């Protein structure tokens, strides 16, 4: 009987452990799935999936084609300057890295990107404005 009890106790504890293990595993699975769902949902609400981005890309190429061909040749120099300025919108990538919690290598890279892009943004827009104010219509001497 004693043996029985012991074995029973053993068995019970084993079942309990098994159950606990199983539970843990299930929980892990659930967590993972939730994580996946979270990520995917983030994908839905916040950032776009590849197909959408690609569609946006294709349409933007059309817009770019038309909008640039409609620029008057007299303003091709300002066009170069202003595209220079707006292409620095990649500063966005630098900001994300530079503004991150930890101050690591990646943050330094972000800082440099922000600095360089800023040179370009300020420089590009100011040069553009400087050029554009010069274009005047009727003679005013």
């Amino acid at each position: 009987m004693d043996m029985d009890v012991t074995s029973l106790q053993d068995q019970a504890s084993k079942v309990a452990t098994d159950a606990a293990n199983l539970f843990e595993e299930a929980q892990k699975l659930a967590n993972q799935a939730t994580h996946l769902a979270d990520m995917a949902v983030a994908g839905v609400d916040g950032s776009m999936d590849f197909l959408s981005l690609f569609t946006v890309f294709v349409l933007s190429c059309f817009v770019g084609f038309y909008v640039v061909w409609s620029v008057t040749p007299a303003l091709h120099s300002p066009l170069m300057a202003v595209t220079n300025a707006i292409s620095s919108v990649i500063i966005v990538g630098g900001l994300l890295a530079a503004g991150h919690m930890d101050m690591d290598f990646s943050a330094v890279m972000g800082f440099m990107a922000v600095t360089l892009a800023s040179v370009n943004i300020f420089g590009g827009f100011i040069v553009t404005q400087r050029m554009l104010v010069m274009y005047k219509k009727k003679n005013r001497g």
Partner: protein
Amino acid sequence: MSAEMTGFAYLIASVLFILALRGLSSPDTARMGSRYGIIGMTIAVGTTLLDPSVVSFELIMLGILIGGTIGTVVARKIEMTALPQLVAAFHSLVGLAAVFVATAAFYNPEAYGIGERGDIKIASVIEMSLGLAIGAITFSGSIIAFAKLQGLMSGNPITFPMQHLVNGLIGLAIVVFVIMLTSVQSAGVFWTLAALSFAIGFLLIIPIGGADMPVVVSMLNSYSGWAACGIGFTLANPALIVTGALVGSSGAILSYIMCKGMNRSMISVLLGGFGGDPGKSVNVSMLNQNAKSGAADDAAFLMRNASKVIIVPGYGMAVAQAQHAVREMADLLKAEGVDVSYAIHPVAGRMPGHMNVLMAEANVPYDEVFEMEEINHEFSTADVAYVIGANDTTNPVAKTDPSSPIAGMPILDVDKSGTILFVKRSLSPGYAGVDNPLFYADNTMMLFGDAKIMTEKIAQALA
């Protein structure tokens, strides 16, 4: 700010960037357009700063402060004639910034939500390495372009044996390393890829002659746009993609326009070996011929008695900074009742729209300045064509000699006008190194001298 809101903000920024370029369709709307661009950039930056993952602002503020100051000072100081090299320098910065962003993403992918260090999503790795490679090429290429335009290095094409083979091999290696990076995400592979890309940018540009640099700058502009697209895909940010595509198209179209204006193919430009320092390849055989030359007074007399004068500015006017002098001379002529207008060849000067900016700088109203197609038929009714520092763009050889390097390039028909005045320092050819038979035409009078000094003298004679 919710994720949806963020998305809308970026969309608004994109639309503002489109409107910024759209504004440039006419000088009247251009300034408004560039204001849209500034607002768009502010929105894009502001939206990113509100991102919950952006928590520390010291580095950001510092970066914007330093960068903004440098940019402002440089942009205020720069001479309008130095625009081509300025644009090249700015491009190199965008390229380098793209490299830094790609590096940041590689070392801290969590910040961008694209996976974990050493375990980045494959699609993101590809997009990221495209951003890296294109950015690096843009950087080193633009540095060379800048150095050539600024005169820091010789404009001569630098060629070496088996150039194309070496370039091809490096290009192949880049592709291999991009693929490798998708599985082995080690720093070693990453930096090798970066180094190879820097190298190819350098090697691709050095064989191209200094005078072809404008096409190169434009092409690199295009590259910087596509690099922004690559980063945009990595960050899943539509604003970057839209902007990148705009910039990419703009650069591509401008290169196309320039190539067409010179009647050369993009390929021939990129293969290099053409257009070294101007004046090197003077064909002296024609110098013996008789070219009539005149003085400022003769020119003043001719133009005062003309009823219609067309001014044709070229690269030499930019070099001599003669635009203000030209404007004053034109004012004096107009005061005498002469009808004065300006004819701009699509590739006059050294960058697209170069002459237009200079004329605008000198306060010439833009409705007196005409593109080639608009004014070309009017040379036949003009009494005098005042060609100042322009050469190739007036060279009839383009029409007559199919073997010439400028064969097929459209030219300004100055030879149709009553008298042609050529203001330049010598009989040496222009950028393409082709002699101009017009110098020896019966109705041509050469005005030898610096463009600015000569024009001022004529103005004095008119006053």
